[in-house]
């Protein structure tokens, strides 16, 4: 749920990075954190296991600049990708304004991508959202790996409605900010339309 505060002149929105386990959701946030000016970001929080797998969520508050004298602040969250953390994923989707689906391009992770996307659809529906109506982009991550599936195949399986899509290699940062910009822009456009 976006929050517009006329007193502090701020527009606050919530973005969630969703996708299969080990697909690079946390890596996206880590790269954004590393490359963002200290004035524009808060502390990055990772609630992770001892083996650095996301347990509950990662959180990164980010300022993207001003529109008409209002600061735009985005709260970026990741969900835990592992299948058995479904209860946690549902909680993090509460109040979401925009979604990035981080797909793992590796051919052997195709089933996991499809399963995670279906899980996203179901969990959003449970909260009264419709993925087709929500600001939503897809990132095909790990394009730098030799076992990456052809783009056409990923598209066919994961992007039947032709939402904005980006090729990425989150470890090196390729495509990370393009993805963020696209979803943030889509959220603001939707907010304007709804307002």
């Amino acid at each position, binding site marked *: *749920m*976006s*929050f*517009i*505060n*006329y*007193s*502090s002149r701020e*527009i*606050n929105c*919530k973005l969630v990075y969703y996708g299969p386990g080990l697909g690079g959701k946390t890596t996206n946030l880590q790269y954004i954190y590393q490359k963002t000016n200290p004035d524009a970001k*808060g*502390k990055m*929080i990772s*609630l992770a296991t001892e083996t650095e797998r996301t347990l*509950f*969520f990662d*959180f990164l*508050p980010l300022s*993207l*600049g*001003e*529109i*008409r004298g*209002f600061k*735009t602040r985005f*709260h970026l969250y990741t969900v835990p990708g592992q299948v058995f953390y479904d*209860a*946690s994923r*549902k*909680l*993090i989707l*509460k*109040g979401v*304004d925009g979604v990035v689906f981080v797909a793992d391009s590796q051919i052997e992770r195709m089933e996991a991508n499809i399963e995670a996307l279906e899980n996203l659809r179901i969990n959003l529906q449970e909260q009264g959202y419709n993925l087709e109506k*929500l*600001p939503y982009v897809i990132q095909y991550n790990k394009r730098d790996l030799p076992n990456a599936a052809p783009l056409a195949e990923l598209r066919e399986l994961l992007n039947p409605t032709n939402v904005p899509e980006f090729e990425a290699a989150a470890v090196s940062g390729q495509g990370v900010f393009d993805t963020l*910009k696209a979803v*943030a*822009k889509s*959220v*603001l*456009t*939707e*907010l*304007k339309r*709804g*307002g």
Partner: protein
Amino acid sequence: MSTQVMFPEEQEAINNICFRLQRDANARAVLLIGRDGQPMAEAGEVAELDTTSLSSLTAGNVAATGAISQLLSEKEFGSQFHEGERAHVHITLIAKAIMLVLFDERSSLGLVRLRVRKAAEEMNRQFEAMNNRKPEDRGPSVLDEISDSDIDNLFND
């Protein structure tokens, strides 16, 4: 996509409730947090607190506790208390938000609970008034003023 809007006079009313609670409970600080983790108001010794992180983690905590209550067929756990060596945290659910009281040896759990009860009632009334506000009672929204090129400009390198 839903939007919560807060106008200056509403913010002031909420700030005042937080301020009175912090003062009357002898608390270090009081935070009002949206259920999705957005900080909404604060009072007291907040200069050295990372209120953004605190808000997000508290909302996550409340959401997880709410899911536990559902598993136990309980409507909700209306309040939580975390006891530390020096700092303690009391969390209360109100209408659409979460009220967090941070306190130390200058106060006690009993006093905090007593003061929170009254403040929660006031805050609930304030939120009800905000919910009943009619959109036409207010001037034009900032959202009406934002143009597509404003949004494009934000993302120009």
